[in-house]
């Protein structure tokens, strides 16, 4: 596919992409009709599957000085974060392969991914996964 073709595809996807969201402060977004933007596109908090039996320690956001909360942690499971770098020109595919390699080594029986985000440091991007090993047989 030509570069122009790729750009057209990205442009068509842009309205649906969370990256295109112009995020204001929560109190201002709360006064708009764009509920999806406030609750989903501009919300960087960890997402949880609604399962009362699965309560794990809430890790603080990256860069935060806050300590993890004291919620109950099921025995044998804990939430952790892994990261892999990538460049804008190279794309995230190599980072995804690297993250999967880390997760396979750490959670040979499988895992549940809770959150995903990207940060830029010194011109290089890093892809983060926050996950929990799946302890079920």
């Amino acid at each position, binding site marked *: 596919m030509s570069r122009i073709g790729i750009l057209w595809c990205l442009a068509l996807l842009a309205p649906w992409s969370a990256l295109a969201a112009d995020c204001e402060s929560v109190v201002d977004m*709360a006064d708009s*009709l764009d*509920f*999806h933007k406030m609750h989903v596109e501009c919300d960087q908090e960890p997402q949880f599957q*609604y399962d*009362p039996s699965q*309560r794990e320690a809430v890790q603080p956001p990256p860069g935060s000085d806050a300590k993890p*909360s004291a919620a109950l942690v099921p025995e044998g499971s804990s939430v952790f974060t892994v990261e892999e770098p990538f460049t804008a020109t190279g794309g995230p595919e190599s980072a995804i392969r690297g993250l999967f390699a880390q997760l396979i080594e750490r959670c040979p029986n499988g895992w549940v991914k809770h959150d995903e985000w990207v940060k830029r440091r010194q011109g290089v991007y890093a892809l983060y996964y926050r996950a929990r090993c799946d302890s079920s047989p």
Partner: protein
Amino acid sequence: MNKSLLALAVSALIPGYAAAAGPIDGDIYGKINLSLESIELNQGGVDDDTNELQSNASRIGVKGKTEISEDLYVIYKMEWEVQVDDGDSDLTSRNRYLGLAGGFGSLIAGQHDTPHKLAQNKVDLFNDLAGDIKNLLDSENRAKNIAMYSSPSVSGFGLTAAWIASEEDSEDDGSSIAVKYDNEGLYLSAAFESDVEAEGTDSVRLVAQYNINALTVGALWEENDVDGLEKQDAMHLSLAYKIDKVTLKTQYTVSEIAGSKAVSSVDGDEATMLSLGADYKLGKKTKAFAFYTTMENDEGGSAVYEKDVFGVGLEHKF
């Protein structure tokens, strides 16, 4: 956001609340806006001049979401107005809802500003202050018992439609709908509302706002059609110019829509409002501001109403 702090805050707001099983997935947010104002009022020929400390729609809220399946979320929000100046009528309810959000858009129910009201977007540069356009416009409704659907934004186009239950056998249910285009600094919206402000009252609202580098221009036109009365309309223009941390702003509103303090239901009665002001950005979420607002009617059959307000204030969002 500290989840333990959220649990404590919710417990403080709702006596007897016990933390539910399952993860707490929300945030606390809000803002405090205080202004010190000098008010000169002449109503019906009687002067009433005062100095006041005003809490301008200061509020605290909780909002959150829980993912229940891929790209499907339960969402919620509850907001209360906080009277930071004197504590009177504290914690009155503002917008609140429970709903679902996903690729289909969002669907909520509860108590909320109508699509017609929120179609104004940001053309009101003195929102929540003495120069708020609600002083001269009537259909600024926060509806109870509302169910509302908001579509995804597709190339900047979006639609929001609401049904408002009257919960009375003798009254019609209300409806409010708004379509918008919001892209590349241009915002356009058309809204229609029926039987929300009152039984037999319809309102049409057209809004436009455009950002050109540091300049923002806005306009709003509204027409109200009340059973038994001639149609009444209002026009509003606003202008803002940003210079580094300072935003200079002005707006002018002229209205013959009855229902405000300045405009009676007498045909031909009309009021005007002019506001001038400046905001100074102290930080990412903090600003200082000053404003002057003058409002008067044209004595078209109703008593004289003249109000001048000069204020300075501070706002912080959290």
